[in-house]
């Protein structure tokens, strides 16, 4: 790693540290007398939630769509990300004329509780100690994230959401929304997700967490006090996780056994293969924008997610009486949240008599497919959203 590159990284990581308390997006502050009650029993106060909005809320306040981001996502869905300088993470789906049409809908995305982009989390300052919370931050759940979002919507004066949508951990939040606040959800789009985290998924998360905690620079979680970060551990965690977001087919197609800028193996442990070089890059760029402790907290929240637990183990009971319409989608090559996970959700919704659409989309792009340009996902979402908009008497698309 060259000197110049290092200083560039430092600038970006300083920026991401600044975002944790002073986000460049909008932020709602909740004072000491407005605590957020968490599943673990902790009353979090004061706390804050950072969010982005796109489009205009209509007079009836009936056109709001909440987008829920995934594990390492943030509220910058469709604008240039202030830390990375790259386009938002879902510009394929959110924007003027897109399925989540900013010309027709008021779109909200909030940074999740426990993350590091301006919503309270381990990277935020603890008002009591004036130090970063670090591992003293309470362990949060998917339901806590959703409660925080609901408090934000209360602030914004939005009683009922036209739609809640998201993939992966975002999809978990979508399901939790439908379960915890059934009267506030008109339609729901859980993508590439499951109603519970599988043993295999918990296992991968544990590998990631152990990599972070094994890094001596983690300092028992209090690395910020030492002016340092567990970069190596977090990078390894990201590399391992990244493999689970792809598929064997896509890896073969994109990298195969090709060598990186060399004609023959070097008989060393350099990144000889393109795939090694790619993963190293993914790990390196991740640590510049993401807080290691946040990674521990958010993976934990996913591990704890088991929606049926709320209803004595019967998933159908979770959705009993729901009036929301659902559109579930999975991807054929997604082995992190395989189609059978989506099918379990669909079966439960059917048993509950809910209105549900379900498509399995053929792709070799693995779990990450929901973030990518997938024409079938595009057409499915658009058809579902347009039909839901008609049912809610929202104006038709102009184009």
């Amino acid at each position, binding site marked *: 790693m060259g000197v110049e590159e290092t200083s560039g990284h430092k600038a970006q990581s300083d920026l991401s540290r600044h975002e944790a308390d002073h986000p460049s997006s909008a932020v709602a502050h909740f004072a000491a007398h407005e605590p957020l009650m968490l599943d673990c029993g902790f009353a979090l106060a004061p706390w804050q939630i950072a969010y982005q909005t796109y489009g205009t809320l209509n007079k009836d306040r009936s056109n709001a769509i909440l987008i829920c981001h995934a594990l390492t996502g943030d509220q910058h869905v469709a604008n240039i990300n202030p830390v990375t300088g790259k386009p938002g993470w879902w510009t394929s789906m959110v924007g003027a004329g897109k399925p989540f049409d900013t010309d027709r809908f008021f779109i909200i995305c909030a940074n999740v509780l426990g993350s590091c982009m301006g919503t309270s989390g381990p990277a935020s300052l603890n008002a009591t100690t004036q130090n970063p919370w670090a591992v003293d931050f309470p362990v949060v759940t998917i339901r806590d994230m959703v409660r925080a979002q609901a408090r934000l919507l209360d602030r914004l004066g939005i009683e009922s959401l036209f739609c809640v949508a998201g993939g992966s951990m975002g999809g978990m939040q979508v399901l939790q929304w439908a379960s915890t606040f059934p009267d506030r959800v008109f339609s729901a789009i859980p993508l590439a997700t499951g109603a519970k985290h599988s043993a295999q998924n918990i296992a991968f998360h544990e590998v990631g967490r152990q990599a972070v905690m094994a890094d001596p620079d983690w300092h028992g979680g209090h690395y910020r006090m030492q002016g340092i970060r567990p970069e190596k551990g977090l990078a390894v965690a990201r590399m391992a996780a990244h493999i689970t977001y792809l598929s064997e087919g896509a890896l073969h197609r994109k990298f195969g056994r090709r060598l990186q800028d060399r004609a023959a193996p070097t008989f060393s442990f350099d990144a000889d293969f393109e795939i090694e070089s790619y993963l190293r890059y993914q790990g390196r760029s991740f640590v510049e924008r993401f807080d290691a402790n946040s990674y521990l907290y958010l993976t934990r929240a996913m591990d704890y997610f088991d929606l049926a637990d709320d209803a004595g183990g019967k998933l159908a009971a979770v959705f009993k009486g729901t009036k929301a319409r659902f559109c579930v989608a999975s991807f054929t090559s997604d082995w992190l949240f395989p189609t059978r996970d989506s099918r379990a959700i669909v079966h439960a919704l059917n048993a509950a*008599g809910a209105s*549900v*659409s*379900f*498509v399995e989309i053929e792709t070799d792009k693995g779990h990450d497919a929901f973030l990518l340009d997938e024409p079938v996902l595009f057409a499915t979402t658009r058809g579902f959203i347009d*039909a839901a908009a008609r049912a809610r008497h929202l104006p038709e698309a102009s184009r």
Partner: protein
Amino acid sequence: MNDHSSRVDLLLVADMIEKGARVLDVGCGDGSLLQILTDQRQVDGRGIELSQSGVNGCVAKGLSVIQGDADTDLIDYPDDAFDYVILSQTLQATRQPREVVKHLLRIGRRAIVSFPNFGHWRIRAQVAFLGRMPVTKNLSYAWYDTPNIHFCTIRDFISLCDELQADVEKAVALDRNGSAMRMNLPWAVWNMFGEQAVFMLKRHGIK
């Protein structure tokens, strides 16, 4: 499973359903019937379809359709979940038609089943005189690639209804041109000259 647009039974089925009913279309294909029912009858319609391309097309049209299999997935639906459950030209392609019809009667207050009549004289004639498996305009598959594995005749279907203690509320046979045959003809005539049949059934004893 079949091309809905050319299917003569669609409008006939649609006519049997009142406005605003809750409807499940099992084997809904490209969603043509659901679309008709939604547009003309304002039903609360759902569909199950085996083929992924069919499902994707339906959902893109805004229909509530899931990818699923009549043989395995009907068990998920609670009793009396729908006013009407429709099985349109799909019965003959199921692995366990008897079980499927039982589920239809359980899930819906009324079950509407349409199927090609294997007792039609042209089919009988092909088997009797040519000694070949029949291939007709409506049943255009060869024996080795047909998805239709459980054909029945109108009479066979009536005896299945008896066995399942289902009441036949309505029955219509369609002739070659797709027009409904006169109601008061005896079953034997329908069985000989009806190319397709549409039945509305209910569990014995329910209103």
